[in-house]
């Protein structure tokens, strides 16, 4: 425990380099990864949660809150004005709302994210994947798969979900790419400018949808929200930003990393080519498990004393959920550091757990499935040419990396 508190003094879970998802500090967690108390930069107390079982139990426990709270664990020394801004915006974001409001707002978006609703997107997403692969083939290899497919495809899919017209897509894709960061890191000023341009654009988009409702994910959400008094115009603009950008970087990385993992494991790739319908669902879950990154940390604050395995998490204390470690927990998965598409990884934590589990997860699964399937069948000789050196992280997010492939 002393050791843990010491580490806490220098911010316990500062984001670190790519691509090793298991960071040296976490290997120093005590044997068995018990709940470990740390001190946040603000001086408040929080617990590192690294066991798969603990993560599931605590994230499904409604005595923890995502809403701003004076002792909510924030991983960097934040000035008061930033905290005030976060608290203001938090009122309008699904990810920082507790039930029952969270339940009401999630259900405004949910009908467009069901499996059946997402399955309706399949032909169009396949068509888009085919177009990107046609272009790759026409240009000839080697190509950077991130720029050729992983980055542009999700942007186009998101634009279709939002009903963004072709003529306006450039505004979205250009700024969204800056905000998630590509292999050329952008400065904070460039990111702030991109954010400002996007917010201005989303504000216009919200007004357009309010005036002329459209039958797409965003249009339907805005129509449903309009029948309640949950959001004002600025709130809808913030929710639009969250709905359209929350999963963007996540899926870009998984498409690239998924294909890299398969290329690194030729026997598994051969098995997958031979039985794609049988093995692809498992492959998708294993890619999600294996690349569940520690940098995507889930934070909560306790609203009451919570007992777990003989430890009391006191009211007001935080938890920092290291889902990347949970997804590599040897008590849960045998040989957890091995990529294995034959294992049952359906209970991975990549999309989180509890009521805030990723709303767009089926869209992400669909893109990952179609990209992997199309790439491995279209290019039987697909191979890795080079991948990037580790890159410095910007704002705590793992960067989109470069992945050059030939065929």
């Amino acid at each position, binding site marked *: 425990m002393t050791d843990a508190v010491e580490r806490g003094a220098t911010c316990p879970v500062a984001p670190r380099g790519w691509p090793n998802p298991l960071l040296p500090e976490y290997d120093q967690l005590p044997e068995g990864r018990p709940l470990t108390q740390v001190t946040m930069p603000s001086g408040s107390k929080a617990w590192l949660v690294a066991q798969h079982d603990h993560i*599931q139990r605590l994230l499904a426990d409604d005595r923890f809150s995502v809403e701003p709270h004076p002792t909510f664990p924030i991983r960097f020394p934040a000035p008061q004005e930033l905290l005030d801004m976060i608290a203001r915006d938090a009122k309008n974001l699904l990810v920082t709302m507790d039930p029952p409001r969270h339940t009401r707002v999630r259900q405004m978006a*949910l009908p467009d994210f069901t*499996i059946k609703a997402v399955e309706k997107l399949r032909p169009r997403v396949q068509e888009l994947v085919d177009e990107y692969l046609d272009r790759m083939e026409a240009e000839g290899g080697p190509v950077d798969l991130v720029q050729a497919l992983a980055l542009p495809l999700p942007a186009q899919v998101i634009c279709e979900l939002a009903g963004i017209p072709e003529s306006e897509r450039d505004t979205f894709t250009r700024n969204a790419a800056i905000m998630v960061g590509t292999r050329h890191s952008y400065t904070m000023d460039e990111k702030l400018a991109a954010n400002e341009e996007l917010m201005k654009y989303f504000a216009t988009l919200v007004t357009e949808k309010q005036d002329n409702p459209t039958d797409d994910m965003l249009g339907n959400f805005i129509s449903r929200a309009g029948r309640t008094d949950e959001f004002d115009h600025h709130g809808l603009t913030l929710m639009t930003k969250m709905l359209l950008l929350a999963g963007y970087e996540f899926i870009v990385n998984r498409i690239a990393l998924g294909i890299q993992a398969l290329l690194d494991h030729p026997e598994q790739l051969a098995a997958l080519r031979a039985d794609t319908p049988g093995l692809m669902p498992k492959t998708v879950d294993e890619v999600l498990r294996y690349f569940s990154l520690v940098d995507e940390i889930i934070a909560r604050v306790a609203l009451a004393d919570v007992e777990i395995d003989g430890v009391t998490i006191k009211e007001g204390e935080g938890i920092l959920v290291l889902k990347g470690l949970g997804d590599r927990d040897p008590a849960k998965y045998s040989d957890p550091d091995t990529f294995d598409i034959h294992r049952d990884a359906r209970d991975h934590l990549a999309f989180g757990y509890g*009521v805030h589990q990723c709303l767009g997860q089926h869209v992400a699964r669909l893109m990952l499935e179609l990209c992997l399937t199309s790439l491995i069948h279209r290019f039987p000789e697909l191979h890795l040419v080079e991948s990037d050196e580790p890159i410095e992280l910007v704002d705590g997010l793992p960067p989109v990396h470069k992945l050059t492939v030939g065929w």
Partner: protein
Amino acid sequence: MDRDRCIGAGLCALNAPSVFDQDDAGLVVVLNDSPSDAEAADAQKLAEDICPSKAILISDG
């Protein structure tokens, strides 16, 4: 089945489509409340490990 707890993640319908479905609102519905042994075993796994909101309750009856 606790539809008040259900958050519509859809993992039951994804992993055991012969037993569970999502209605148009996205919430869980049971298609088959007397599943085969294999389906019941899968439902058990869903309830214990996969359903993120603990909305699935298994009863022996």
